[in-house]
């Protein structure tokens, strides 16, 4: 049984009057869209020990609070973590593949305590009720989650950099602040209202971390052909040197949508979360988040969320077979290219011509051309998109 918190807070006032028409929309993961926002606690916050946490953790808290990580209500306790690692499910059998973990900032806490977590960048101020304190075999965790213990893998390196002491428990968000790109950010409650207002019943989600080239557009439009709308959902946040800057990705998509998409068939909103590079497991996690936004379908490409050569190119497709109860339909795409014989974008299922006629969409090549300040060929990237990118003096992270 959960220990009662010494903080007596009042959850955000909400009624049982549901949005009537959402019955056509997929249920949130775990059948409940989590809301962990609270009014001011009745207890004086000054009495509660406070700790500054890093920005990624504060993003996790925001994603828990606004339901992106539904059904999670906080950081994983031991039982849930152990099931996630070994079974790819929470202890109650709901599919969940990525650990959401918290390292205690101090040893001077115990189960039953409540601590306050803050972050200057996001303005997050949250309470964490400590339900469980535990250690875990992080070597085994890395092997199961990332399929490797090689510390050259960024996810493994992150896990190994953590202390082997974890805290699980519910969070309650007290405050956060406005940030750059907020005008592009919608919560799952907001996207669900948006989709309903647009009259969309079937929505396909597309995740991205790059400006769109012709291949991306082909994938999106192919999927869109069979549903009512597309939800373009770039992940923004921490980037490595050479990546496109967030503002460049957003501006390039705005240009593409303005010129080449029907306004009533496509929307874009950002997702702030860190990449774990857990390949197949992360593909499931990405699908779950989009299900919570109200999407019915999720596009999974080649080597989704992969890094280096740790995963097979279609491992992220195969893993979906393990989840008959996921509640969102994966839409798989294999590699695609431009066929000079067909005169169009093709994939290996639809084009009979030899590889010599195929031009691959190379993000690296497009980047090199843009770095020279030139417009890539129009069969690689829309001219308008390239011109938008080139309006930025420094489109790449330095």
């Amino acid at each position: 049984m959960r220990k009662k918190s010494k903080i007596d807070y009042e959850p955000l006032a909400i009624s049982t009057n549901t949005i009537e028409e959402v019955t056509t929309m997929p249920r949130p993961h775990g059948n409940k869209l989590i809301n962990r926002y609270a009014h001011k606690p009745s207890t004086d916050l000054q009495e509660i020990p406070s700790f500054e946490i890093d920005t990624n953790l504060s993003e996790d808290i925001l994603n828990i609070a606004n339901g992106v990580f539904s059904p999670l209500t906080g950081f994983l306790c031991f039982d849930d973590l152990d099931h996630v690692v070994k079974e790819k499910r929470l202890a109650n059998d709901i599919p969940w593949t990525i650990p959401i973990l918290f390292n205690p900032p101090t040893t001077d806490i115990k189960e039953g305590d409540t601590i306050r977590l803050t972050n200057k960048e996001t303005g997050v101020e949250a309470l964490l009720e400590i339900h469980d304190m535990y250690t875990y075999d992080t070597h085994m965790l890395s092997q199961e989650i990332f399929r490797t213990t090689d510390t050259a893998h960024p996810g493994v390196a992150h896990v190994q950099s953590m202390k082997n002491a974890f805290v699980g428990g519910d969070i309650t968000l007290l405050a956060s602040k406005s940030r750059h790109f907020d005008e592009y950010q919608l919560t799952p409650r907001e996207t669900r209202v948006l989709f309903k207002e647009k009259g969309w019943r079937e929505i396909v989600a597309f995740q991205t971390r790059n400006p769109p080239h012709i291949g991306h557009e082909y994938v999106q439009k192919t999927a869109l052909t069979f549903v009512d709308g597309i939800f373009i959902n770039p992940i923004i946040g921490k980037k490595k040197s050479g990546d496109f800057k967030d503002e460049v990705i957003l501006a390039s998509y705005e240009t593409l949508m303005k010129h080449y998409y029907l306004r009533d068939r496509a929307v874009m909103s950002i997702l702030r979360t860190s990449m774990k590079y857990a390949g197949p497991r992360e593909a499931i996690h990405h699908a779950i988040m989009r299900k919570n936004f109200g999407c019915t379908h999720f596009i999974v490409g080649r080597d989704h969320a992969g890094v280096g050569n740790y995963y097979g190119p279609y491992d992220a497709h195969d893993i979906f077979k393990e989840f008959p109860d996921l509640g969102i339909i994966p839409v798989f795409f294999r590699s695609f290219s431009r066929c000079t014989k067909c005169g169009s974008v093709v994939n290996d299922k639809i084009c009979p011509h030899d590889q010599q006629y195929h031009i691959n969409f190379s993000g690296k090549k497009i980047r090199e051309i843009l770095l020279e300040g030139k417009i890539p060929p129009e069969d690689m990237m829309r001219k308008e998109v390239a011109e938008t990118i080139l309006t930025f003096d420094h489109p790449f992270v330095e």
Partner: protein
Amino acid sequence: MAEEKNEKKYTTISIPTPLAEKIKRRIEGTGFHSLSSYVTYVLREVISGMEEDEGEEAFTKEDEEKVKDRLRALGYLD
């Protein structure tokens, strides 16, 4: 703080032997490694289709209007 607080929990369910034999034949050459893994898969699929929304801690009409106002202000809705 024990590292192994919890063991995997499984339970045993009896099904008619002829059915079990039929399933064993059915899963030969598939990705299912055991009768149990197949039965678990099928039951998860069936049960997930029967589960009901726990009732979103939902919006009032007023909440929903506030969301629509924000969506309009951001240009997502006309």
